[in-house]
């Protein structure tokens, strides 16, 4: 009786884990692009988010007219048997986050823009996404990206 219960539980675990799809990626190894990477200063207050989301890189470009564009590459790290099982049980597949860009002018003053709102984003385990924002005017050269797990608040 006990043995069959264990077998059933194991089967359930395997079935649940099998329910989750992850993303495989393929890209050219020798890159042609010349990326202007930015060194980042990261303040992490959410341990769960830190484990689940990898910040791969930050880069910038200057657009015609002197406006700056920022891009942050993030990757969902919710892969692996137990992680996938847990996110499947907790119904967190896809992983929902929210992000917000804040732009600062040369005097360090924050400029309120259409970007200054929390925007939702769904991430499939293993998926890489690039969050982009364009500065509201040419005087804005610095930015801050805030990321949090989506919670309707």
């Amino acid at each position, binding site marked *: 009786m006990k043995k069959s219960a264990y077998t059933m539980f194991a089967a359930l675990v395997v079935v649940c884990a099998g329910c989750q799809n992850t993303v495989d990626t393929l890209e050219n190894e020798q890159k042609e692009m010349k990326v202007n990477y930015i060194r980042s200063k990261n303040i992490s207050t959410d341990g769960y988010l830190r484990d689940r989301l990898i910040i791969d890189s930050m880069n910038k470009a200057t*657009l*015609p*007219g002197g*406006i700056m*564009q920022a891009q942050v590459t993030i990757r969902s790290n919710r892969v692996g048997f137990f992680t996938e099982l847990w996110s499947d049980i907790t119904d967190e597949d896809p992983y929902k986050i*929210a992000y*917000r860009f804040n732009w600062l002018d040369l005097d360090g003053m924050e*400029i309120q*823009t*259409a*970007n*200054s*709102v*929390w*925007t*939702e984003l769904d991430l499939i385990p293993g998926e890489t996404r690039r969050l*982009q*924002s*364009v*500065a*509201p*005017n*040419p*005087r804005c050269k610095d930015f801050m990206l805030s990321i949090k797990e*989506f*919670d*309707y*608040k």
Partner: protein
Amino acid sequence: MKKQHIILASTAVATAIFLTACGSGPSRFNAQSNRGITTTDDINFKDWQITAEKTVNSMLKSGALRRPDGRKNIVMISTVKNSTSQHVNTQILTNKIRQAILRSGLALTTTAVSARGAEDKASKQVRQLEGDEMFNQDTVQKQGTAIAPDMSLAGEIVQEKTRQGRTKQSYFFFHLTLTDLKTGLAVWEDNVEIAKQSKKALIGW
């Protein structure tokens, strides 16, 4: 029998207290947060924000607002056609975009002309003061000084509804264009897609 009445009354009071406790009074919340009611059939305020964010980023990135001669383009707001089944005020979107255009410093917006007439009627009204003895005529704005727009912002919002069993879905397609009024050519176009889905409970509402 009396005991039963007491139990019944106590239960009714307890239920009433419980139900009262379930509600909540009105409260303010940050409109930039993720809070707010999300409905499948309507465009909610978060949808406007997401659309504005994406279109403003796209427009500024495109460089379409810039002129090679250094002068700033003047942008007028034309019509954003509402092809949804709901009554929506598209000004929420166009006002956000026009603010972003102005803040960018790349172009200027006009309030003297729009598809629905002047946004600000004052530009026309002050010119009617010409010849009015009450006003110093040197300070009255002259005819022929207002600047006509170079570009026009227009668009359309389309909604497609689908229902299958207990699941219903809405797909909103926001399409915006920036037209060079001299040539009639679109110098920038983009769209934002928002899809929403909800599933009705098996029992209840």
